[in-house]
């Protein structure tokens, strides 16, 4: 179990030599060129932007949908019907990420192109919709990747939320119903306050998955020679997809070190998100008892 410390330590040890000879600022530069070992120039700004934007899109879509499904399964459908329905949602988790990537790149991306064009041109007053550093054709942008990620993280958020919503004390539910609450009012006054921290924790776990998802994003996002324009219609790389894209060329230790440095940042990032999720869940549990 010391593997966690080992992972961090190892990545750090191998990243340091490359970081020391990095000729530009590692955190603020959008540039990434590791071909010339004598002149390493790598910065993670754009990786960070693309990673965060795609995960945010995923979270914004998946959170409300997951809450709706979890409530529907726990407090609307009779248990006998809910079980097969829940199984269907769990099936989503069984689809491998490369298949999601394949479908996103070949089927969903092109299908979303008209919607993307509409948002990009007609609603460009919204900062995240304005600009694009790759062509909208084919849908190889953060928008498509985010939607695919949202489908991929839906099962985990739903599963965690379902579990906590299910545990709402019957006494409280009956208290609300006896006051003449409609079903929705009962959910709002008892289930949601009770399950809120669990729901947030589940969403954080989903966020952790989205941040680290590799191959689906790699297949969907188109690379761009231009720096990020902070739009969801950009292409580019996330931390994970950048590392995976360069994997066949991991021969030169110094340039490999640059990718390992990116991996380290991703590791710290997901570690923080997951630890936060545990903390929120633990606090919720303490409050409920």
């Amino acid at each position: 179990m010391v593997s966690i410390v080992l992972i961090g330590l190892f990545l750090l040890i191998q990243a340091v030599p490359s970081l020391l000879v990095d000729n530009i600022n590692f955190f603020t530069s959008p540039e990434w060129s590791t071909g010339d070992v004598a002149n390493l120039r790598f910065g993670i700004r754009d990786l960070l932007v693309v990673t965060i934007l795609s995960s945010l899109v995923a979270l914004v879509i998946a959170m409300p949908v997951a809450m709706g499904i979890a409530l529907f399964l726990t407090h609307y459908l009779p248990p006998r019907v809910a079980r097969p329905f829940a199984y269907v949602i769990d099936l989503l988790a069984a689809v491998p990420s490369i298949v999601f990537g394949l479908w996103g790149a070949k089927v969903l991306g092109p299908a979303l192109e008209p919607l993307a064009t509409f948002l990009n041109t007609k609603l460009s007053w919204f900062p995240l919709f304005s600009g694009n550093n790759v062509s909208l054709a084919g849908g190889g942008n953060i928008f498509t990747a985010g939607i695919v990620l949202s489908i991929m993280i839906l099962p985990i958020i739903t599963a965690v939320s379902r579990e906590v919503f299910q545990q709402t004390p019957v006494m409280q539910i009956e208290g609300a119903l006896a006051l003449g609450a409609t079903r929705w009012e009962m959910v709002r006054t008892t289930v949601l306050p009770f399950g809120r921290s669990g729901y947030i924790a589940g969403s954080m776990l989903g966020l952790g998955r989205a941040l680290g998802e590799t191959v689906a994003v790699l297949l969907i996002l188109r690379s761009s020679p231009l720096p990020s324009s902070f739009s969801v219609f950009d292409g580019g790389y996330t931390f994970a997809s950048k590392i995976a894209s360069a994997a066949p060329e991991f021969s030169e230790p110094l340039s490999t070190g640059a990718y390992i440095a990116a991996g380290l940042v991703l590791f710290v990032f997901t570690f923080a998100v997951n630890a936060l999720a545990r903390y929120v869940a633990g606090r919720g549990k303490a409050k409920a008892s």
Partner: protein
Amino acid sequence: MTATLTDPNRPAQTPAFQKISGARQFKNYLAMSLMGLAFVVAVIPLVWLLVTVVVSGYEALVNADWWSKSLKGVLPEQFTGGVYHALYGSIVQAVVCAVIAVPIGILAAVYLVEYGNNSRFARITTFMVDILSGVPSIVAALFVFALWVTTLGFETSAFAVSLALVLLMLPVVVRSTEEMLRLVPDELREASYALGVPKWKTIVKIVLPTALSGIVTGVMLATARVMGETAPVLVLVGYSRSINFDVFGGNMASLPLLIYNELLNPEEAGQLRVWGAALTLILLIMFFNLVATLISRFSAIKTK
């Protein structure tokens, strides 16, 4: 009140129940409809995806060569050859991973449930398992690369892939085993102690066999999960178009790696292979899931 009821001239009777307002009823139905809609929204991509994969890939699967031949010597535009080399790779890498991860995972779970007693070390272990379960597969792959290849100097191989998969499988095995062990009733343990059986023997002879089917189910599910992992194979092993039985050396194909490489093939035959391999991978994972479900259904833990 009763007097007015009998009064023939009384006005229309006031209703016993105050109708709930239309706005409240509307909100109630709206909320319910949105929840149902959320479910439909989630099912659409699932169905869409599965239908796409089946329709685009089944043609490849009906060919007998698909299951019995590799792509050795097959030209990009040729509609021949199969994925048996990749199927072999996927299964072998997952099995090697399971051989390493399952004993460690079960030992850790036994420690946590039977000996841990919520001690400091047990809590740290639980926390580590939680965090490990959140480690992205690409980071696990990178770690194994840094350790196995750069530091220890081994070449990339299927075994390196299995090592990375161990990191991903371990937390799943620990968690599910823990859950199953906790389901074993304490009366069973106490009955065994009462007969003078030492603790370790009680665990080996009583606790583990009782929980066995649940543990096996968890292992099958975990194995299915790691089979779909692509990041480790991208980083840790090269692609081969022919069969390689050597786990410790050389390139070895697997279904995800085959998909990734054939994607670069613009020919129609390449696309067919991509979708065919995707469908094969889904079927393989479904098979493991199905076996897991069957095991848990037909030999559920006897708690009563």
